[in-house]
């Protein structure tokens, strides 16, 4: 596997500089189109992780204290050493150990469907994970020390300056296109969305024996393009009766469907979806991708 995936760090569409989509072309030549995690998701994942960290530290401290009381001071030095190591491991290795697992994500990132990936599309190495998390010292713990300092008037001003200065590093992800924090810059990583998606049933396969066959003319099917098809798919998957009714009426009006033909709204939409998808897909095979309803054929 000497080949390494190619990544273009430019957004997919140059006209939209803020687009979170990035190309990741595998060695097999397929573009996987990664989506970057937004700053809000990153912050959310971090807050979840911090909550877990703080919670486990509190539990760990209580357990250590109970153990010390239970041992009646006999093993106190040993318990203190264990506590020190445990707190150190929690603070410094929590992120590293979780990101070293195959899913490359801390529990917070897992909950929000994120993962760490190497920016060049190659392997995510242990060194990179170590580096990106060692930088947290600068981004999180340094602002905290400035925040928690207790001082007189002059020192307070100094620590306020320090807080603003260190806040620059904390807020770095907001100010760059790839949402990189200092650790990501130094380690050559970024955080992408890696949601687990279920394979939903094929709408065109659903209910293959309709009560009656609904036929559409090519003109009626030419009213819409792919974008509308996907909206229709969304409507059918959610199947809220109000929306279904409104959409069916809208489509009937647009294609001039005769009134009083007697079929139900859902039935009508199902049939129209299948017919529209069939038409658009067969034209796709001939190299014609009709993006939306405004995308008319030349000369048609």
């Amino acid at each position, binding site marked *: *596997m*000497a080949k390494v*995936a190619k990544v273009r*760090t430019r957004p997919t569409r140059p006209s939209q500089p803020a687009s979170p989509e990035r190309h990741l072309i*595998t060695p*097999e030549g*397929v573009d*996987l*189109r*990664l989506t970057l995690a937004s700053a809000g998701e990153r912050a959310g994942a971090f807050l979840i992780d911090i909550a877990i960290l703080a919670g486990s530290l509190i539990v760990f401290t209580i357990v250590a204290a109970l153990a010390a009381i239970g041992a009646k001071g006999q093993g106190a*030095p*040993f318990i*203190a*050493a264990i506590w*020190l*190591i445990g707190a*150190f491991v929690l603070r*410094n290795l929590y992120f590293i150990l979780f990101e070293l697992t*195959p899913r490359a994500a801390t529990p917070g990132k897992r909950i929000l469907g994120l*993962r760490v990936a190497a*920016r060049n599309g190659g*392997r*995510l*190495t*242990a*060194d*990179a994970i*170590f*580096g990106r998390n*060692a*930088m947290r*010292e*600068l*981004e999180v*713990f*340094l602002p905290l020390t400035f925040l928690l300092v207790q001082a007189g008037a002059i020192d307070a001003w100094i620590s306020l300056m320090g807080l603003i200065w260190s806040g620059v*590093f904390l807020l770095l992800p907001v100010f760059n296109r790839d949402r*990189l924090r200092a650790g990501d*810059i*130094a*380690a*050559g990583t970024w955080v992408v969305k*890696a949601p*687990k*998606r279920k*394979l*939903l049933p*094929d709408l*065109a*396969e659903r209910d*293959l024996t309709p009560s009656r066959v609904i036929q559409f003319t090519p003109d009626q099917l030419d009213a819409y393009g792919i974008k509308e098809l*996907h909206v229709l*798919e*969304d409507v059918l998957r959610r199947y809220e009766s109000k929306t279904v009714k409104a959409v069916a009426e809208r489509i009937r009006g647009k294609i001039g469907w005769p009134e009083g033909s007697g079929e139900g709204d859902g039935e009508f939409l199902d049939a129209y979806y*299948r017919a529209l*998808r*069939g038409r658009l*897909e067969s034209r*796709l*095979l001939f190299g014609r991708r009709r993006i939306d309803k405004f995308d008319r054929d030349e000369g048609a």
Partner: protein
Amino acid sequence: MAELRLKSSRFRAEREADWRRLESLLSRAERNAAGLSDEDLLAAPLLYRSALSSLSVARATSLDQSLVDYLESLSTRAYFFIYGARARVTERIAQFFARDWPDAAKALWRETLVCFLLMVLGIAVGLILCLRDPDWFAAFVPAQLIQGRGPAASAAALRATLFSSGHGHQEWLTTFATYLFTHNASVALMAFALGFALCAPTAMLVTANGLTMGAFTAVFISHGLGVEAVGWLMIHGVTENFAITLAGAAGMRIGWSLAFPGERTRLDAAAAAGRGASIVMGGVLVMLFCAGLLEGIGRQVIQVTWIRYAIGLGTGVLWLAYLYGPRAIRRRTALG
């Protein structure tokens, strides 16, 4: 009514079993990579490629949005599994000590030298200023580190801090060593991370560390305990300060490459610098662990000054030989 079925539906029906199989394989792998059978491992790349080809076909021919989304997510997961890091932990650790760490440290020799000189400068300035005017001591040494070792303390009291008297505290030695390790590791991590802010804060931190040491030594020298104090510092200080110097050097490399990326883009330069720097930082933690043991246990158990000197110098020579000494040139195995 087979002719009523869409081509994309038939395509999906034919391939679906493979996708499901890959999905369940990935779920198991993400839970526990070692739990995969040989059969699974052999099938994984094939299923991955077939999913990729399905994705290409689906993008070109299917307008079922949920199918394309599913295949994208499945292929991405499979990609990260197939091309993800899968070196065995033991192999990785062996390679780290045999090659990666010394190589990365050697590559940082310039920054290491700069950090070392800054520390020496700090020691010299702290020493000279405090010898001339003991009032400087309070400016250089943080209050929590003094512990009765200020300039006003008597020679006897100072001597007592260098050589522990009774055996009353023996049982707390491990605790003390642990505390020192975690404290010093935090200092080293900070020296590393501060390098990102274009080197200057790291330089300050390293120099300040030197100033503290210089000021301490000055107090002991002025009470005629210079030789003993240096031995007390050296037994662990050689390892500890070497580690902090390396951590500072690693941080500086990142800050420097951000400030002066050369022909590469700033991001590429920083990522390249960060790779080596992270490896060095891993080594720094190992060194600090050794220093913590030496400081917490070795220094309390060994009370003879010349042995302290010998151990201090010995560890210094060992680290230098290990990190910078010549080693047999081995052919690099390809990383894949």
